[in-house]
């Protein structure tokens, strides 16, 4: 019996050492005014109160939430549709899968860097192509206009994460029972009806799984923003994680930065927990 613990615990302990232990420390720090200078003093909830009077934080929070919701919605819908497309027995399976998986192999920072080059405004490839196609007349200010920048950032995130969503949906679709579709065919369902009456309901667990992981992933977004806009213009594309990083590592205000991090943690747990609960209910 003891042997079991020897086998099971090393991995768990390593994991806990680098997640729970630092987490507890972050929590502690958030209640102090710790920084590079001076001795840290316990200040209770002061940091948290300050958080909600911090304009930058509030805008970061808003943007993070909007960005997350928009991203996971698009990723889920597109992911499902493209997965269905890829399961259609078309030619060139292998090359299709390869190309589809390329964004997945790219570092988020690299993805952001490449898109940044394409987003270049005065004569960047994106604007040029759109202008040649006659879709736009003025160059789009992809990354320098506050509103457009938010949209541009979401596009990059979706582009990067779509591959994973497609894979998971393909797995889910592949596990659907084939004879149920034949029964529906005989009952008289057409393709649309089969999709809405059978495929979608049966894919609920998979969908919630995707939403859960992508939700927890997008809400922590740091690298893409760093690579694209560093939070700009102004604080238009500032995410919570980026802001936390700036306060902690650039301004070296450990206490305040930790408070932001705890807020980030709460959001992550909230969105992850919500979809985990839906997932649990859907797979009973």
């Amino acid at each position: 019996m003891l042997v079991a613990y020897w086998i099971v615990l090393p991995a768990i302990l390593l994991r806990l050492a680098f997640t729970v232990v630092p987490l507890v420390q972050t929590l502690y720090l958030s209640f102090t005014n710790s920084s590079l200078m001076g001795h840290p003093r316990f200040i209770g909830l002061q940091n948290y109160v300050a958080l909600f009077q911090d304009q930058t934080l509030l805008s970061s929070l808003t943007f993070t939430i909007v960005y997350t919701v928009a991203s996971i919605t698009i990723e889920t819908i597109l992911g499902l549709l493209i997965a269905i497309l890829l399961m259609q027995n078309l030619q060139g399976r292998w090359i299709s899968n390869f190309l589809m998986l390329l964004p997945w192999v790219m570092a988020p920072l690299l993805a952001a860097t490449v898109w940044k080059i394409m987003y270049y405004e005065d004569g960047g490839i994106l604007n040029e192509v759109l202008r040649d196609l006659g879709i736009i007349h003025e160059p789009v200010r992809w990354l320098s206009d506050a509103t457009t920048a938010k949209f541009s950032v979401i596009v990059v995130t979706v582009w990067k994460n779509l591959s994973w969503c497609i894979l998971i949906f393909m797995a889910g679709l592949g596990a659907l029972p084939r004879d149920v579709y034949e029964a529906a065919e005989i009952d008289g369902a057409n393709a649309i009806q089969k999709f809405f009456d059978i495929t979608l309901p049966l894919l609920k667990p998979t969908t919630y799984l995707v939403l859960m992981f992508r939700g927890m992933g997008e809400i922590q977004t740091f690298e893409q923003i760093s690579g694209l806009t560093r939070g700009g213009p102004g604080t238009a594309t500032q995410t919570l994680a980026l802001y936390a990083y700036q306060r902690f590592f650039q301004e070296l205000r450990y206490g305040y930065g930790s408070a932001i991090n705890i807020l980030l943690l709460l959001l992550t747990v909230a969105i992850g927990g919500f979809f985990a609960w839906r997932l649990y209910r859907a797979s009973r």
Partner: protein
Amino acid sequence: MIGSHMLMAALEKQMASVSINDVQKRYGSYHALKGVSTQMADGEFVVLVGPSGCGKSTLLRMLAGLESISEGTIEIGSRVVNDLRPKDRDVALVFQNYALYPHMTVEQNMSYALKLMNTPKSVINEKVGNAARILNITELLKRYPRQLSGGQRQRVAMGRAIVRDPQVFLFDEPLSNLDAKLRVQMRAEIKQLHQRLKTTVVYVTHDQVEAMTMADKIVVMRDGIIEQVGSPIELFDRPRNTFVAGFIGSPSMNFIPGSVKDGLFVARAGVHLPLPDGARVDAVTYGIRPEHLKLGEAGFPADVIVIEPMGSSTQIIAKVAETVITVLSTERLALQPGSTIYLTPHVESVHLFDPGGQRIES
């Protein structure tokens, strides 16, 4: 549009016969069905039976419209249905694995087809209620498939088919996944259902017992062709070849190789078997069913290998003429393996087969 379709279907309900005309099926280079033809009358219970890979399920699925027809035609009622989609053929299929919609209740499973046809709610409830009552599943209506046992799921699958009131019921090995006892019970229920509803049934199975007990007409298939079509008794008494003879009847017919000489059938090891009058000379296989061999004092000798007492009868595996045979006796016997028994065949029930495996008519 929908109205006229249903009117036509109602009229054709009078003659829901099925006609299979020289149907072929190819999967690439694989020739699954090599030209099968048969007719099924309205209201008949037809069983397609044969070993795995014989094409019976393929044929059934082509009837349903789940597989395309490479050559030949299939008619349901008087319509050629080759190019019709399943829903337009007015057939219902009961699947081997039930194929119930896992996320819908029993009631929703049974209502789905009607809902797709925009049938009014009251009509749906009535039909579903009726079908549920016939199948004794009324109390299961609000449950989900995962909460049901195999037998219950099978009933729901049948209920889903009944509700549609189709011209033809198709069954694809529906009892294969049930345990033996349940299978026997469901066999009788399906047969009763057929007697009640009087709809044409095409039933696929690999189990010849099911075929024998349920069918009005049996279609024996092997390797993509039809070996023989007939009533159970016809197939039992007058099988066309060794395959059908060995397939139908349990325990299966014994085959002893040899040749005809001087009015007797000479097998190996010097065993001489009696022949019926007028037996032809080109017979090379002697077929006799286990129940047509009588134990006694006289007859040809056989060495007992295994005794299988089955309560009211006894099955004996023995060796004669270097061939292993089975004898079925309606008595209880106290025999030892290794002992010798003497068997007399019931000469009128002997089947003789020519070198090609075809039965020789006497």
